């Protein structure tokens, strides 16, 4: 970001519309609002086309000579392949219901961040080349020539959409803007036009099994450190296994939880929970990533990265899979994995060995979300919990876009949190559950160089947190997403100082009374717990 604006400056947003039309104004690349270009080595790792050094602000993007042909051919192919894409191109009546629902529009005031207009960037090209009226009448019929300026505009705005799908909740036709962005990005990738914050993790995941590029011995070392911390806090030594053949369950988490705070506290929570209930499970250093940045690149890349989860489950001979707290990971698991890499006939429908609950909802994928698993344990009274150990926290819950809108995990996390915390306050109704506001950094936009975009995009979410901070003294923003755990701390520090960020299983771990544990004097962050006696006096 060029110069860090103050929150007061940044919150002055100009919503007045420009006098000139939108169609023929070349895009202006504003510092702080876009991510760095992908590096050739990242694209080469996964054999993506046109790997070369390029820079966003260069006039010449070093595109192949026939780039226009490639784009139009790719559009044609996808219009035939995906009925949804053609439908979304055809049926929008431009009613504008979505316009003010996008966090990026609310935070920037840029009309091209209205979902309807962002889609129109590609829809206008669709009309010009793929509809009779557009072919004959050109821009009279809303058609637009595909030029380099148009392509650059696509790049700028398709990497200013976090694929959160809030707009689709309000669209009377149910147009899924995320799918339009996904197709747009997929086409851009045919020309080597990715961002490094996506291309780098994709390459890492392809080579080493996870976005961060953690190698097996590094993962092991990080776990040993966390195990040591758990023992210091609880007196209990947990003993997770890695790549263990014959385990009943494979557990796959986002790699961020194995490296960055506060994700590591959540990771410790997973380990403590599984230890306490005696689950026969294993981690994998090969399928060491639940997230899938391929999903922000192309369907094909997402499929390639996703395939290792079933491959590893088969190799290890597990019966079923649990997945950790991650957002976009779950849109992939829930809506794509089975079609791409299934059917996983070698696995069994998940049955909790502790409660006997059969997760019929995962009858096809054979993979369940840890929020479902833990909620089921609590519902059956299988966990000994002391929520007062979270009494120093006043908690609210941020629904990740993908777990809420993408798969309908709405009540399970709330049920868990209310059972492990005594102080829970919801944010306003229009900002939670299906209508949740994005963190502003999803879909691979969590870079440093686009910090102004992230702060602007995260403004509506932060505003809702501020509301519960002011009314209820909320000081902890819980979530079930690793991107949230990386993206929300700077967002809170900027807009709502005094609010910290935690994964749900960190809160579970605080409250979890383990067999043989010592008296807890510290929470999962090794912070002293407030005096219990004082709390009882109140």
């Amino acid at each position, binding site marked *: 970001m060029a110069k*860090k604006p103050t929150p007061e400056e940044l919150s002055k947003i100009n919503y007045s519309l420009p006098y000139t039309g939108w169609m023929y104004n070349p895009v202006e690349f504003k510092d702080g609002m876009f991510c760095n270009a992908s590096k050739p080595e990242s694209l080469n790792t996964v054999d993506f086309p046109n790997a070369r050094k390029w820079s966003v602000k260069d006039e010449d993007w070093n595109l192949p000579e026939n780039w226009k042909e490639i784009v139009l051919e790719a559009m044609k192919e996808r219009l035939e392949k995906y009925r949804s894409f053609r439908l979304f191109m055809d049926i929008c009546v431009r009613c504008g219901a979505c316009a003010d629902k996008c966090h990026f529009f609310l935070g920037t005031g840029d009309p091209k961040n209205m979902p309807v207009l962002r889609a129109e960037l590609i829809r206008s090209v669709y009309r010009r080349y793929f509809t009779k009226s557009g072919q004959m009448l050109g821009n009279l019929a809303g058609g637009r020539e595909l030029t380099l300026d148009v392509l650059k505009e696509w790049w700028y705005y398709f990497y200013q959409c976090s694929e959160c799908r809030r707009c689709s909740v309000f669209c009377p036709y149910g147009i899924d803007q995320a799918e339009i962005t996904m197709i747009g990005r997929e086409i851009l990738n045919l020309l080597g036009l990715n961002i490094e*914050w996506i291309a*780098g993790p994709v390459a890492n995941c392809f080579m080493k099994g996870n976005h961060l590029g953690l190698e097996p011995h590094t993962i092991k*070392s990080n776990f040993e450190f966390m195990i040591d911390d758990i023992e210091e806090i609880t007196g209990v030594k947990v003993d997770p296994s890695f790549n263990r053949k014959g385990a009943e369950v494979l557990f796959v988490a986002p790699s961020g939880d194995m490296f960055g*705070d506060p994700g590591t506290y959540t990771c410790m929570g997973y380990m403590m929970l599984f230890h306490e209930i005696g689950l026969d499970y294993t981690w994998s250093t090969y399928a060491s990533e639940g997230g899938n940045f391929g999903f922000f690149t192309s369907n094909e890349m997402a499929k390639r990265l996703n395939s290792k989860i079933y491959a590893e489950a088969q190799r290890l001979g597990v019966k079923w899979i649990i997945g950790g707290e991650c957002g976009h990971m779950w849109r992939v698991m829930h809506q794509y994995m089975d079609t791409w890499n299934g059917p996983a006939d070698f696995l069994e429908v998940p049955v909790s060995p502790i409660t006997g609950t059969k997760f019929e909802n995962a009858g096809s994928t054979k993979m369940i979300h840890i929020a479902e698993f833990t909620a089921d344990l609590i519902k059956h009274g299988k966990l000994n919990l002391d929520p007062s150990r979270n009494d120093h926290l006043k908690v609210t819950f941020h629904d990740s876009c993908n777990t809420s809108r993408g798969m309908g995990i709405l009540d399970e996390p709330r049920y868990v949190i209310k059972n492990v915390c005594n102080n829970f306050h919801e944010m306003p109704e229009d900002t939670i559950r299906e209508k949740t506001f994005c963190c502003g950094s999803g879909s691979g936009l*969590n870079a*440093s160089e686009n910090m102004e975009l992230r702060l602007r995009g995260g403004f509506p979410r932060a505003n809702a947190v501020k509301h519960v901070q002011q009314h209820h003294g909320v000081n902890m923003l819980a979530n079930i997403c690793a991107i949230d755990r990386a993206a929300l701390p*700077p967002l809170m*520090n900027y807009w709502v100082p005094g609010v910290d960020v935690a994964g749900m299983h960190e809160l579970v771990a605080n409250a979890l009374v383990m067999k043989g544990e010592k008296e807890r004097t510290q929470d999962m962050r090794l912070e002293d717990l407030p005096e219990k006696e004082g709390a009882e006096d109140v």
Partner: protein
Amino acid sequence: MSDDVNKGMPVDLDEEGYLIDYHQWDEAIAHALAEKEGVGELTPDRMEIIKFMRTYYEKYNYYPILRHVCKNVHQEKECINEEFIDPLKAVKIAGLPQPTGEVVAYLKDEVA
């Protein structure tokens, strides 16, 4: 790399100020990098942090969890933020390669 970045430095740095050749590092370079980053004097506590980060990197081909560093050098668990303000400055002074964007996102929770 720009000349400005390298001004007065006996070694080559990349555009962001990270040492290009990890092996060129020695304590004198660390002092020069610390001065360039505005960290000031490299006290024994700070040098201990830096050295642990290097040892870890050599063994694991990766950046250590920040708390892990502090625990191992027996300092406060926020030692890196306290001693260097910005964890990335510690990475630079330790002569480690520039971390990828995602690593940066997990190391920093302040707005740049």
